[in-house]
């Protein structure tokens, strides 16, 4: 029973904070709400027995990426409500578009064949040992390639952020 309650709570928090990210006027608040959303999602990961992933998620998203966001906002001095207002018409159309997307997606999920979970629940799936086995055996090459991607991203970011190349 407690699991059900936990699910409801975490889902509610995730959705609410997600909405707050979009709706709050101050970008710094948005970032903080997004961190909270990530925590809610991390809670879901724990619920799903993906403990290692939950930890990584907190570290990478809440720890690294969000700090990067905050850093940029600070650097560009955006922590004020300087955003020009969109017209009501555009806001309404955005809401309608997103809403209809939601409806259509839900409807299509409803229309799909129900997924039957495997009978034997393996609680060790999310453990670091298991993940390590899969990652370094089956996905060794993509893992290595992703390191190249990170390197490229780093070089690209440095190149772009430099004032000018002399």
């Amino acid at each position, binding site marked *: 029973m407690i699991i059900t309650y936990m699910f409801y709570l975490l889902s509610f928090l995730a959705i609410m904070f997600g909405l707050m990210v979009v709706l709050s006027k101050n970008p710094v608040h948005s970032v903080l709400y997004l961190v909270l*959303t990530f925590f809610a999602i991390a809670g*879901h990961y724990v619920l799903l027995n993906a403990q290692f992933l939950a930890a990584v998620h907190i570290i990478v998203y809440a720890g690294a990426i969000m700090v990067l966001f905050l850093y*940029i906002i600070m650097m560009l001095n955006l922590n004020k409500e300087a955003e020009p207002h969109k017209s009501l018409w555009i806001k309404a159309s955005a*809401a309608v*578009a997103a809403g209809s997307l939601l409806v259509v997606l839900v409807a299509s999920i409803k229309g799909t064949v129900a*997924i039957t979970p495997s009978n034997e629940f393996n609680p060790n799936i999310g453990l670091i040992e298991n*993940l390590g086995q899969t990652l370094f055996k089956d996905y060794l090459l993509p893992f290595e390639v992703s390191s190249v991607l990170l390197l490229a991203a780093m070089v690209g970011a440095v190149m772009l952020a430099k004032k000018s190349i002399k």
Partner: protein
Amino acid sequence: MSIIQTIPIEWYLFLSTVLFAIGVFGVLFRRNAIIIFMSIELMLNAVNLLLVAFSSYLSDSKGQVFVFFIMAVAAAEVAVGLAILSMVYRNTNSPDINNLNKLKW
């Protein structure tokens, strides 16, 4: 009593869908490039959540490994994207994406 006996997987599907739709709404609703970026992160996370859910329900660790890769890509994307944003801001003095309309004819 584990989660897969209590909660049907459809619920996670709906939760992910709702989070994804919120991300889409944010992209359409806001003009601040930083917020749009965050909405995109939200969409990515919605997908991550779904992958982890499937991984657990199907007892297959590959889904979680996939989430790792998504995280790596997201990190790279954020680094480059924020660098681009800072450059845009430097040139236009505004985070408003409507300033970036040079693509038209």
